[in-house]
């Protein structure tokens, strides 16, 4: 305990004293997020019950220069919610009310601790849903989705969190409460809402979010197709795009990923094939039917060895279960693994996969690939055995893959964020003036540098440290979340 008694007392006055946790054993539950290799036990954990208490807590932080880290469900995969030594964690777990569902204007107003899937559950009676669907959607919170600008399998057609959030009530790092965004797509001046979205908790804490809801599509058609090579499957995606079709989702898995998924959930994938493609179309039934026939033809033209069309909601769910199980399932074919998240221009998928395979061979490690083929977002899984002393080699390979993505004109991260994990790789993607400008933006929101310090932008102190090895998150071991 290094925060002095004065500060602690101030927090106890701002909140109910019972909502200020200082017991190191209880604080340790907050020591990491889904990126479990980094761990820091916070001095205090605060559990505010409403926006006013969040603001009051942040005001205490501002007054005493105490760094704070906001935390949702802790499912993030980049160490964005890693606590700061001598700082506090502000958990939004108790702000979990759905405040309003408006079926006429198709929007919901929710608190940040509401889970992604709870929004859809609240909207479903009106035939509406919330579109972004990160695969941890059962447990990840909308506040965390806002911080990370989360995507999901369907963002190719429907976009990311930023495309679905109209406004956010935000506690700024000085403790003031403001609204960013508006009730429509119009805005009064610069899109501060859009700057805040995806800022990984470094510009403030959102306490209320207004999201757009979409009407559930009339028709959804899903197919699973096997191909003799990754290249053939990639060509299918190219031809679908060239035909002017925007699928709701296009997902690809390679041999290793298929093998692992099939072992885990028996979803009906073909073990041993080089590549499997999941293509989903949705929309008005008349449109969907026409385009689905085109997609089938394209698959056949490229030597598809098996075409399985979901004939029912159950069969569709099974296809997705296989796809979504792939990550956790890799644990069945390897004792340890690193999950990577990188993006390349879609047309360079075959090239990057070839180079990843070669890099894996050179390192003597296997790499399984599961990815969003429609938008070039890769999730290579580097398999290794810590017991056999492969950790460092695997970590190096995983990092090299992310940097390869940048080299091929892509990005360090498509959806997991930079957080703690990749802050030191940012100079590979951005120049000094780019990063300096981002620091100036951060400083405008947080001149005191107390809001989730050390995340996103590289600092010398951070970039001298090394992470520990990957350890499964408790929720992951319980099968509640998967790493995507």
């Amino acid at each position: 305990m290094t925060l002095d008694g004065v500060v602690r007392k101030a927090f106890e006055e701002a909140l109910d004293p019972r909502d200020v946790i200082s017991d190191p054993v209880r604080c340790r539950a907050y020591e990491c997020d889904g990126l479990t290799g980094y761990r820091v036990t916070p001095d205090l954990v605060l559990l505010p019950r409403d926006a006013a208490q969040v603001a009051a807590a942040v005001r205490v932080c501002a007054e005493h220069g105490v760094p704070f880290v906001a935390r949702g469900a802790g499912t993030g995969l980049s160490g964005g919610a890693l606590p700061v030594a001598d700082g506090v964690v502000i958990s939004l777990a108790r702000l979990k009310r759905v405040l309003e569902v408006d079926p006429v204007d198709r929007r919901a107003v929710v608190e940040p601790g509401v889970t992604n899937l709870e929004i859809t559950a609240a909207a479903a009676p009106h035939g509406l849903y919330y579109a972004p669907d990160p695969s941890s959607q059962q447990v990840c919170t909308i506040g965390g989705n806002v911080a990370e600008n989360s995507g999901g399998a369907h963002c190719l057609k429907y976009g990311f969190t930023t495309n679905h959030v109209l406004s956010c009530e935000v506690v700024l790092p000085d403790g003031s409460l403001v609204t960013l965004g508006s009730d429509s797509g119009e805005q009064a001046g610069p899109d501060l809402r859009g700057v805040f979205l995806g800022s990984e908790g470094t510009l403030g804490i959102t306490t209320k979010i207004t999201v757009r809801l979409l009407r559930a599509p009339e028709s959804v058609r899903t197919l699973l197709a096997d191909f003799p090579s990754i290249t053939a499957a990639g060509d299918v995606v190219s031809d679908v795009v060239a035909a002017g079709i925007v699928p709701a989702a296009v997902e690809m898995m390679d041999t290793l990923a298929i093998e692992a998924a099939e072992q885990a959930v028996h979803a009906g994938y073909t073990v041993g094939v080089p590549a499997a493609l999941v293509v989903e179309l949705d929309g008005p039934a008349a449109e969907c039917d026409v385009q689905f026939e085109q997609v089938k033809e394209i698959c056949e033209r490229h030597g598809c060895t098996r075409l399985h069309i979901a004939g029912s909601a159950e069969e569709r769910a099974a296809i997705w279960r296989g796809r979504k199980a792939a990550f956790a399932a890799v644990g069945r074919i390897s004792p340890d693994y690193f999950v990577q998240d990188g993006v390349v221009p879609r047309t360079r998928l075959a090239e990057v996969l070839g180079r990843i395979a070669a890099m894996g061979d050179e390192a003597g490690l296997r790499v399984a690939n599961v990815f969003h083929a429609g938008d070039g977002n890769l999730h290579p899984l580097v398999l290794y055995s810590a017991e056999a002393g492969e950790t460092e080699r695997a970590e190096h390979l995983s990092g090299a893959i992310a940097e390869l993505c940048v080299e091929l004109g892509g990005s360090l991260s498509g959806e997991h964020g930079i957080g703690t994990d990749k802050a030191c790789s940012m100079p590979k993607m951005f120049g000094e003036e780019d990063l300096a400008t981002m620091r100036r933006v951060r400083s405008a929101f947080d001149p005191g540098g107390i809001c989730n310090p050390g995340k996103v932008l590289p600092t010398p102190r951070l970039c001298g440290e090394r992470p520990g090895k990957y350890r499964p998150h408790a929720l992951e071991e319980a099968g509640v979340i998967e790493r995507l």
Partner: protein
Amino acid sequence: MSTSSSTSARPTDLKAVRDTVLDTAGTIAIAGAGTAAGWAGDLAPVDTVLDTTGLSGVIAHNPGDMTVAVRAGTPLRALQEELSSHGQHVSFDAARVADGATVGGLVATADSGPAALVFGSLRDLVIGVTIVLADGSVARSGGHVIKNVAGYDLAKLLHGSYGALGVLAEVVLRLHPVPRGGTTIALPCPLDGVHEHAARILGGPYEPAALEWMSADGGRLLVRLEGTLDALPAREERIRELLGPQATRADDDAWEQHAALVRGSGRGAVLRVGARPSRLPGLLAGLGCQAATVGLGTGVATVELPVEAVADAHATVHAAGGTSVLRYRPDGAGAPGWGPAPSAVAVLVALKRELDPAGRFGPGRFSPWMEGAQ
């Protein structure tokens, strides 16, 4: 927009933009094609006009990736023509695109058209930017891939910045396939009855590409459908059944009429208003509009009203939780560009101080909100 004493510079590449900013002293107005030169706060006299129209042309178009990088002074209309041979376009249809508006100008003014119902505004379509700050810093954010969460999104910051935060030099956009077919159904209908029709269309499986009301000819609801040629006739029939016998195929020039209303007649002031969609018709009824277009799903309206009604209109919209910005003031009229300041105005002022501490760019554009920045 500039005084006779200001000098003009027309850089043709990124380095020249930077040099222009570094080699000049004093205030700078960033100008595009001039199609929105009078929007927002009235620009104060400046020392230099930085004309971006020399920053023209495609840098890289990757049809397979459905992305294009362009210099910011490129007219969007020209870009669309170039992309059309690939069956692709930027899914964006603001009225002034037809007048030659530049990509950078459209981003800086946060403009949008009826297609925003499905595709949003340019803030949803820009995936990367290169900007030049008042001290000559050149900063990039985003990149050339659609899915990307690395670093802060500076494109959002510049979207709606009206030339007051930085110069947009290069912009990367995501593209969509040009729909194979499209059709528009029109229904005569006054503003006060339109909401019911809109609710039925938006509540059903119809997925309109645009849904707008316009004041022309006593009021008309326009429903645009886009999709495959095979599926369109059935979808059109379904909408006509829903709306009843008065619904007909719209005139070919219906969207041009819509765009003309958005531009305004030149006689009154033009105000852009955003609000919760179902509240918009009622809100507009109280503003004394002479003409209007209303996005029934987007909650975005463009209205023409007497200059002397502008200040009250800003206040009324603000009180209803909406946003408003002035788009046209008849010559010599002193109508305010903005209404009451938003709650986050302190952040806006702080950003201005960080990025343009000397207040070089776009003086007056955010008057009176940013006046505390210098």
